[in-house]
């Protein structure tokens, strides 16, 4: 087999791409809002009509290590933004909007009431996205502990809610939550 076979080269390239990490920063990339409400990117001489921005550590580092991906090419990674704050203010703003579009995990700020009945628990809470009511199945893994004080709650519809710090809630609220802690 000839070593310069084009498929081999292609795979080699893929492997290179797989291993290499491209850094995206304000010096080499230009993000722009598209008419359709998404983001386009020109990076290293290439144009991407629409890119997706993905958080690598959504819970621990929401503003750092953002992977920019290309939905036109099997969602392959184009590059990594190490810190959102290193970009210029306007770009930072746009990317934040995109992230907001792709991530919907309301953070519970106040527990108004929890009622349990027939194996389901009905939550009435205040979140950073507004007041809301949701239901969880108590028989499944609806409440996951991200850390000792941080909870992720998944409701019947697969909506996710976060409690950043249980201890920051009032005693009364904590008592309501006790059954799930």
């Amino acid at each position: 087999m000839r070593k310069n076979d084009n498929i081999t080269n292609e795979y080699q390239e893929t492997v290179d791409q797989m291993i290499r990490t491209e850094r995206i920063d304000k010096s080499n990339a230009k993000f722009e809002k598209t008419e359709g409400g998404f983001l386009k990117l020109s990076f290293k001489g290439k144009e991407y009509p629409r890119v997706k921005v993905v958080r690598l550590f959504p819970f621990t580092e929401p503003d750092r290590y953002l992977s920019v991906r290309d939905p036109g090419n099997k969602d392959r990674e184009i590059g990594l933004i190490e810190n959102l704050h290193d970009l210029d203010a306007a770009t930072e703003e746009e990317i934040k909007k995109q992230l907001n579009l792709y991530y919907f995990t309301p953070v519970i700020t106040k527990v108004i009431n929890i009622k349990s009945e027939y194996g389901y628990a009905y939550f009435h809470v205040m979140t950073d996205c507004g007041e809301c009511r949701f239901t969880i199945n108590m028989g499944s893994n609806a409440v996951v502990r991200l850390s000792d004080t941080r909870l992720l709650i998944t409701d019947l519809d697969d909506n996710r809610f976060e409690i950043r710090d249980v201890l920051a809630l009032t005693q009364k609220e904590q008592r309501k939550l006790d059954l799930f802690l």
Partner: protein
Amino acid sequence: MNLKYDISPEVKQKLNLRGEERIYYSIPYDVSDEGKWISDGMLIVTTLRVVLVRAGEVEKSYDLKDIVKTRAEVTVGGGMLIARMGEKEQYITRYSAKHRTRYAYIARGMNILSRGRSEEVESKEKEKICPTCHRALSESGKCPHCDKQGGFFKNFMKMIEPYWERILWINVLMLLAAGVTLANPHLQRILVDDVLKKADGDIRMGILCLFGMFVLGAGIVVINVAKSYYCTRLGARIAKDIRERLFDHLQKLPLQFVNDRRPGELMNRVVNDTGHIREFMQDTFCNMFTVAFIFVAVVLYMLYLNWKMALLSFLFVPVGVWMTMAFRKSIHRRFHLQYLKEDDVSSNLQDVLSGMRVVKSYGKEEREKDRFNELSDEYARVAWNNERFWALFNPAVHLTLGSGVFLVLLYGGSKVINEEMTAGMLMQFMTYTTMLYQYVQWMTNMPRQITNLIASMERINDVMNQEEYGHGEEADEKIEIVGKVEFQHASFGYKSYEPVLEDINLTVKPGEMIGIVGPSGAGKSTLINLLMGLYEIDDGALLIDGVPIEKLEREHFHQQIGVVLQETFLFSGTILNNIRFAKPDATYEEVVEAAKLANAHEFISKMADGYNTYVGEKGFTLSGGERQRIAIARAILTQPKLLILDEATASLDTESEFMIQQALERLISGRTTFAIAHRLSTLKNADRLIVIDDHKIAEAGTHEELVEQKGLYYRLVKAQLEMQASKGA
């Protein structure tokens, strides 16, 4: 699932429908573009447009004729509707996870409309929330509140109906117990008043009283023993019957139902929930009528004896009830917390013990110790707190209720001194008072017992009401499989908004061997799951010899297919039993022959216990390759007409693989075979290969044809050859 929510007439007017334009779908969107919850957003699809309405005002509108394709993209915790307009991707709206499925259907519906067709999509999916009371619906789509609240007694009655004869006897015993319990204090009174207190007390009368008391005392013991005996038997029997029915039903449910749940949860239903029913029958039900009867009788009798004193002693009843009720919540919370902490300790323990090899090989024992200690300390703290609380609480309740007795004693005592009442009567009264308090305490427990029972029965009924899979009335066709398999526009997804296979079309001739290749996660195993009839396809048809698979009688169908899966599962038992699983009456000759074909005979013979070797819970004493070979023997024992091999030889060494390939070749000839493999050499005998990529059949044809095409398959072949070449070099 509702795809047409009501639209108010005002909104309808603002839509300004043009001429022939008709509303097709109208569904809410519950998240604003900025990511806040909203309740007044509505997306309306007409024959010509998509319109976004917010708070009764038209916000945006897109013409369907500009839209090439619409899709509902799943995002983290939600989704968005995106339309491709020419080259441009247009964001239309976003929504929470609640509406993902709805939007998946809407996208499909919009695509049909923008292609100029007019059929409407309908969703067979069930709603999750009761439209009347907004409670979560059970799996069966019934509302636990609206459908069943009044029905609990009906359900309970239905449950105990087959046992009515025993229950009748138990009831007789309960009444007897009540009568005897009430009669005893009365004899006491006679003893005190007519014998002891009288100067000329009749010794014979005294002995008679004592004897009567003894007989009643012994009687109550006998009655209680008999009652407990029958109740325990009844409870165990009912639980056993339900458990068996439940397990039987569970096995007939779609695999999806089992997969969607943690195994622990289903185990709980079979073991714990039936256990609750047993406990209820033997502890609560058994005493329920006795207690109720005695309670009413005591109250009436006390009022009859001395109504003033009776009311005085009732005074403390509400206090006792209040105390128990008030603390019950806190008790429940405390002990539930303790249970959770205990669970933490044991799950951590399980985690570490099963991962011991990893822990040790990374030398992290110290850190694991700290983590365990932390959890263990936490548990100890909660448990200690609870015990302390319990130790304080219980005597406190007794003391409070006890003071009621003192009050009665004070009042009654003064009456006795003033000779308005006899000492015997006071004694009788006090015994009744104590009894009353005991029963009140017992009865305050009842609501919880009943709630637990209701919850358990709900959960059991929830499973029982699930529709069995493939057991419709028409699933009764028994055909001798020849081996023709057809997929016609088959689509399937484990979740309706995430299709795994789309529009699969494939006709397989009897005896043909089909090799399935493609990247991981493309849907190869799913295709095979459908073929095995483990899941029902969402759209299109899957025909076996021209008969839709869902019409085949299950057992008969499964007897004719042989399956070797990637993860081989061996049941606890002997190798013999494991090979015989599909055909328990196979002869020893057949078993040995199958094992030889699977290249398993050699290693089995070398084991001390031969085919009688016991393989542990998951067959841990065997290596992966050995387990796989047993699985192959199991699959070929039945001489299946349809053979399914999902990476059947992946855990074998090259030599065994080669040998089994040879053996399988002999077996495969004349049988329709589907084989998934990553190592393409495994499929060199396949008549046809299909490449599954991106949820579809990307390529299909013989090896030569596909190589010619220079598509995906060609690349895979090249890559594997390269790999071998570079390894060889």
